[in-house]
């Protein structure tokens, strides 16, 4: 029902920015009447869904399953990308490695720092002593850790390993892990485990071993005064790529460099590639759902003479369309919500480790992921576009055609 305002009335002649109380009151009354007129239609829609409980439950569950699978893939991809960017924002601007025909080789620490600092734009330069060594359960990343690394909260949490000692990541220790850790690189090391890093650090240190720098040198066959690679910090992110030619020129040996942006980009593309496989498999599922919804609602309309009866009783085309819209929303909104809640719980549950098993090749102990939630809203929007809108279109299309038909045709068909 629409409230008509007589032409030429005072309220029409009022300036646009003046609020007319009478007009406002009419508008509010109109809105209340609209709500009241839609409410019985809403109740009737719910009752109509109860008439087909099997189809209703089937549609709901199918949609929940589809939203869960797609939502999990989308959220995981978004979360991994944003977490990688977030965590690596504190990483060095550029990592420089010395290479030779046999591989990457150790570089002289002091000389490398001096040469790097001489490049305009470089704020800080430092060296790292690290590498990959064979542990009891597979390859491990071993880092030389000394007093210079103890910054911030690490001072309290991580003890400083002495010669022959090691602090290990949460993934290195297990129920049967002995106190002594055997590492094999260029040389063999036997280390006593003195502490374990908290599970919260799994995202970066799950299979990491922190040892005395002297032990790390011995393990990887790096001579005193040499380091595995060089880390460089610049003032601004964009400067990192700009100084790469200067950096490569300043060293008297061939180098290979990677910027922070490139490192983060590799993780983002890796997660997107893995989630992309899910998108491909979900397309037939989406089409199947749309077809199922179309057939169920079309079947309900064609097999019954409801539309004909409703129109014979005086229902308008809008009323019939509204009822179908309510039916679609009553199934669709809870299904999308339930699917999103399930996928959100799967991905963002603190310490979830299943993506490691499924996507990244972990076998025994997968790292506990603590993911960033920014981007979840974007994933929700994508799900609405990819699943909810096709669902709504498939649900409304049959009734659009039926609602404009002659009611006599439906009554005759019965």
């Amino acid at each position, binding site marked *: 029902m629409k409230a008509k305002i007589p032409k030429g009335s005072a309220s029409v002649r009022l300036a646009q920015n003046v609020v007319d109380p009478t007009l406002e009151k009419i508008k509010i009354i109109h809105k209340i009447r609209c709500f009241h007129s839609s409410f019985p239609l*809403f109740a009737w829609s719910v009752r109509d869904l109860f008439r087909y409980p099997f189809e209703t439950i089937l549609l709901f569950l199918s949609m929940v399953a589809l939203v869960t699978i797609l939502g999990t893939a989308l959220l995981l991809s978004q979360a991994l990308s944003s977490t990688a960017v977030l965590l690596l924002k504190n990483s060095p601007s550029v990592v420089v490695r010395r290479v030779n025909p046999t591989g990457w080789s150790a570089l002289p620490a002091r000389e490398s720092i001096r040469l790097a600092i001489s490049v305009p734009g470089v704020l800080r330069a430092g060296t790292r002593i690290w590498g*990959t060594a064979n542990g009891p359960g597979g*390859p491990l990343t071993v880092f030389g850790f000394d007093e210079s690394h103890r910054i911030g909260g690490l001072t309290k949490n991580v003890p400083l390993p002495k010669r022959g000692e090691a602090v290990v990541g949460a993934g290195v220790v297990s129920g049967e892990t002995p106190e002594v850790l055997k590492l094999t690189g*260029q040389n063999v090391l036997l280390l006593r485990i003195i502490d374990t890093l908290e599970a919260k650090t799994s995202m970066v240190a799950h299979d990491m071993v922190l040892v005395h720098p002297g032990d790390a040198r011995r393990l990887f066959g790096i001579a005193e005064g040499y380091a595995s690679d060089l880390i460089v910090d610049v003032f601004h992110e964009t400067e990192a790529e700009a100084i790469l030619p200067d950096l490569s020129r300043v060293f008297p040996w061939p180098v*290979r460099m990677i910027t922070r942006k490139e490192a983060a980009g*590799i993780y983002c593309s890796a997660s997107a590639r893995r989630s992309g496989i899910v998108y491909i498999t979900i397309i037939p599922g989406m089409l199947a759902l749309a077809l199922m919804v179309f057939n169920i609602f079309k079947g309900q309309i064609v097999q019954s003479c409801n539309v004909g009866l409703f129109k014979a009783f005086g229902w308008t085309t809008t009323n019939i369309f509204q009822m179908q819209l309510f039916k679609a929303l009553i199934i669709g909104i809870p299904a999308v919500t339930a699917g999103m809640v399930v996928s959100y719980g799967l991905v963002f549950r603190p310490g979830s480790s299943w993506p490691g098993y499924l996507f990244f*090749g972990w076998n025994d102990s997968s790292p506990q992921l*603590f993911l960033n939630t920014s981007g979840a809203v974007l994933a929700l929007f994508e799900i609405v576009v990819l699943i909810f809108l096709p669902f709504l279109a498939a649900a409304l299309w049959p009734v659009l055609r039926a609602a404009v038909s002659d009611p006599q045709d439906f009554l005759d068909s019965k």
Partner: protein
Amino acid sequence: MDHRNSDRLNHFPADRLGISSMVGILVLVFAMTALFLFLLDSSLRSSSEQEECLELVRALGLNSLSLIPSGRPLRNPGTNDPSIDLRFDPKLGQIPLDGADLVLKLSD
């Protein structure tokens, strides 16, 4: 027959409209609440658990995450040029790298 008809009339769908509307409203309210909580959680959730990771990345100068096991190419992005072997790779660690074994001897 009349008795049956009266039974049917008593169970005409319209008599359950009140319950139906309540069920519908409850379902939608529940869904909206869950959606609101989802948005609230995703916007307000703090990344306090990532603080220690950030400190470790900063302290060690890490440029890789533990998403992928050690030794895999993606673990240390950019280090694995196909034309270059990893000197510190554990598999290569057991191979003498002085190249003496690669030189053909007269007896061969």
